[in-house]
């Protein structure tokens, strides 16, 4: 009941995050023994130009229900130079056994520091997943606090959702929704998995998200590759 209450509270909160809202929709599951290398790319095209962000991560399970991943975040600046922009550590917690309750829940905690600048951001959020036959709905609701010497301290929130049709392991179409301050975007997503031997597998995700709240061009392409071993 308290999970349901938290979910309703978070979902009903207004979204007022800024920055790049389109990213990855997290699932509330942790697999013991699993380690992974991850690469994510988001390219956002607006009337003002293109913003590109990439993220390289390495991590894995540290217990039966917890996983830890560290990232280096790279961004292209206004002059077109691409460089390291931030570091990030992310802890994911699988709170319930998959399928045991009405829905599955997890939590995510994240801390980020900007490279060469004394600015920080902490994120905490709820990860939710519910099966509907051969489809799955995944919802992330995040609360973000940022502070530092060069920025104003502020609270933000973000909301992400993915409704996935589990067609085949190698190809699963989805509909994705992202919201933050001045941004509500929807679009198709695609998820797939290629299995090598043993625990070695490559998960890929792609999405084409269009901002629908305003006029003008605002499209994002996202790509994520996770190699699990």
């Amino acid at each position: 009941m308290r999970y349901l209450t938290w979910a309703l509270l978070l979902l009903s909160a207004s979204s007022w995050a800024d920055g790049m809202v389109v990213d990855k929709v997290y699932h509330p599951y942790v697999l013991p023994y699993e380690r992974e290398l991850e690469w994510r790319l988001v390219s956002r095209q607006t009337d003002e130009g293109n913003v590109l962000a990439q993220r390289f991560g390495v991590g894995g399970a540290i217990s039966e229900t917890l996983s830890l991943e560290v990232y280096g975040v790279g961004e292209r600046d206004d002059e077109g130079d691409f460089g390291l922009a931030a570091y990030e550590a992310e802890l994911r917690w699988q709170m319930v056994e998959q399928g045991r309750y009405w829905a599955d829940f997890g939590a995510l905690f994240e801390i980020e520091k900007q490279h060469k600048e004394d600015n920080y951001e902490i994120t905490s959020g709820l990860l939710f997943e519910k099966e509907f036959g051969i489809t799955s709905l995944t919802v992330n609701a995040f609360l973000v606090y940022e502070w530092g010497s060069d920025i104003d301290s502020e609270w933000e929130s973000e909301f992400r959702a993915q409704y996935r049709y589990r067609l085949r392991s190698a190809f699963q179409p989805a509909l994705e929704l992202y919201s933050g301050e001045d941004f509500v975007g929807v679009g198709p997503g695609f998820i797939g998995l290629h299995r090598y031997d043993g625990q070695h597998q490559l998960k890929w995700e792609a999405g084409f998200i269009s901002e629908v709240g305003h006029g003008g061009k605002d499209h994002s392409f996202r790509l994520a590759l996770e190699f699990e071993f």
Partner: protein
Amino acid sequence: MQRLIWILMLLSMPAFAELKEFKLVLKDHLFYPARMEVPSGEKIRLLVHNLDGDPEEFDSFDLNREKVLFPGRINVIYVGPLAPGEYFFFGEFAPDTARGTLVAVPFAEQRL
């Protein structure tokens, strides 16, 4: 209002108390039984006893489940409710031998 709160509480309570249990054994990288009937239309508890000395990973895209089977432990996997049909599963570390199928059938057709 109080009635509504009670209904919400009941709906969000775990429903595992009445779940039917079905047992699988993993031994020498083989699942026993390799084919098992389970009821369709209801959630079940799959109890997988890993008798091998190594961990295995139960994997099934059909069932939408991935679960590490710790050695020497009875590992619980919640499955369903399933539509009638066949659901393949395998062990990721021994995919050529550790293979099995759950066959979901309506209660009336089940061989008891």
